[in-house]
């Protein structure tokens, strides 16, 4: 345990230093996270005002303007805390052979990457905090009164972070076979858009799309923690929500291990 703490501490220190070096560029990249949720909010609050002030989903969940504001703002923050972009990085490394020196290190490269990811979130979140606060002030979201179940969002976000991370990393490993992963990534982001609740609250998805979204791993990656914070999860469904998260996490780790074992044999950079 102490071994891993030391390793992560060292990686976090390096990662944070790098992120501070490029703080302006990093901040501008992080602002991309605003675009999607704010556009979603614009579309949905326009739709609800064209529909008499509120929208009711197939299961009876109702959203007003200010509910949409709350949903998309909370989603923006959760999404920032859980996002990962390693699929892009990893394909580059496989293509130009930069993966080789990393393989020589005595620990798996995923740990260094995860630490860099955490450092990015630490640095950017502190910079984004005032902007988030301003958005909450101006968009006037209707948030539920604080209560204890909202604290459950903390473990839910942590699981979502690792879950999203391991799934994206597994996806990135496809680069071992194809070297180019842009199209696959785009496909993943499309699924993520619909099924994690990025384009609309899952409770508003119609028919079969709503059913698929209920059981897909993407729900555990974003929507579930958001709903916990907004107090929209009925108390008898909280436990099953966590069980879903853990289930998909276990599956994700399994897939990752299989793909890594197979992929590393495929890797054929100079000197490998």
């Amino acid at each position, binding site marked *: 345990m102490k071994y891993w703490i030391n390793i992560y501490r060292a990686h976090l220190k390096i990662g944070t230093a790098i992120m501070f070096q490029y703080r302006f560029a990093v901040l501008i990249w992080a602002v*991309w996270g605003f675009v999607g949720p704010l556009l979603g909010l614009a579309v949905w609050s326009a*739709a609800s*005002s*064209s529909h008499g002030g509120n929208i009711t989903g197939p299961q009876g969940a109702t959203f007003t303007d200010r509910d949409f504001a709350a949903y998309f703002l909370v989603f923006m923050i959760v999404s920032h805390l859980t996002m990962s972009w390693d699929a892009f990085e990893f394909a580059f490394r496989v293509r130009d052979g930069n993966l080789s020196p990393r393989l020589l290190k005595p620990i798996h490269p995923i740990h260094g990457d995860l630490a860099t990811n955490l450092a990015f979130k630490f640095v950017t979140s502190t910079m984004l905090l005032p902007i988030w606060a301003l958005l909450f002030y101006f968009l006037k979201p209707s948030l539920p009164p604080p209560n204890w179940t909202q604290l459950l969002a903390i473990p839910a976000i942590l699981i979502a972070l690792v879950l999203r991370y391991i799934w994206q990393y597994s996806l990135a490993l496809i680069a071992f076979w194809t070297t180019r992963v842009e199209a696959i990534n785009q496909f993943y982001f*499309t699924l993520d858009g619909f099924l994690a609740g990025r384009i*609309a609250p899952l409770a508003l998805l*119609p028919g079969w799309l709503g059913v698929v979204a209920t059981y897909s791993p993407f729900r555990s990656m974003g929507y579930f923690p958001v709903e916990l914070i907004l107090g929209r999860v009925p108390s008898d469904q909280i436990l099953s929500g966590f069980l879903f998260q853990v289930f998909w996490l276990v599956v994700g780790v399994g897939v990752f291990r299989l793909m890594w074992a197979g992929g590393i044999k495929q890797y054929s950079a100079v000197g490998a």
Partner: protein
Amino acid sequence: MRYLRLLGAFYRTSIQTDMEYRADFFTRIIASLLGLLTTIGSLSVAFTYTTNIKGWSFSHVMVLLAVYYLMDGLIETFIAPNMRNIMAQVREGTLDFVLLKPVVPQFMATLRTINIWRIANILVALGLAGYSISRLSLSVGLSEASSFAITLLAGTAVVYSFWLFLVTLTFWFVRLDNIEQVIWQAFEAGRYPIEIYPYWLRGALTYVIPVAFIITVPAKALTGQLAFSYSFVALGMGCLSILLSSAFWRYGLRFYTGASS
């Protein structure tokens, strides 16, 4: 005439280079179709609850989306690769090689290359435009078509000028590549009708970063919601922006300190 021949030569050579990476075309087509699918999907979910959003029907929004992708394709094919080159050249001092050529520097610098595979976006956009116009059963007559062509041209001119203006700023500030990200972030807002945004943002998207002018206006022209005379106003604005930005570029060039001077 000589400049047209030169332009032909420029484009021929850069297409030849791109031909080496033919698979990129399919990657681009897939990426652009999937991106489109996400936007259309999110809109159609919203439209299951209401038949119009701030006066826009689903099919009208589709036309708008087609113009958005068309503009995106035009920018990425013809404008962006050159402007990115200039920014890099100013930083590295290699703009000297452009300035030394016996042609107008602005011509050489801003029209030198095209990124041919980005044409994928243009093709996807044209397909979507055709489809949604037939769904609307609109009759696109000569006046709609010509006013669309004029406003689209004017929009492209405005984008070109806007970017040239930014690029010229690099003569003083050297590093501005992050600004490009900010512009693209604002450009994303053009996916949807400008009317859905709050009042202050509409103003910013019209006057500060003219996203409305380059996307909403041609879309309205195509669906016949724009007075024909307005297309001449647009054309005037396009010409004016080119003149102003070119003048600014020539002024900025005097401050360029190359590798050798």
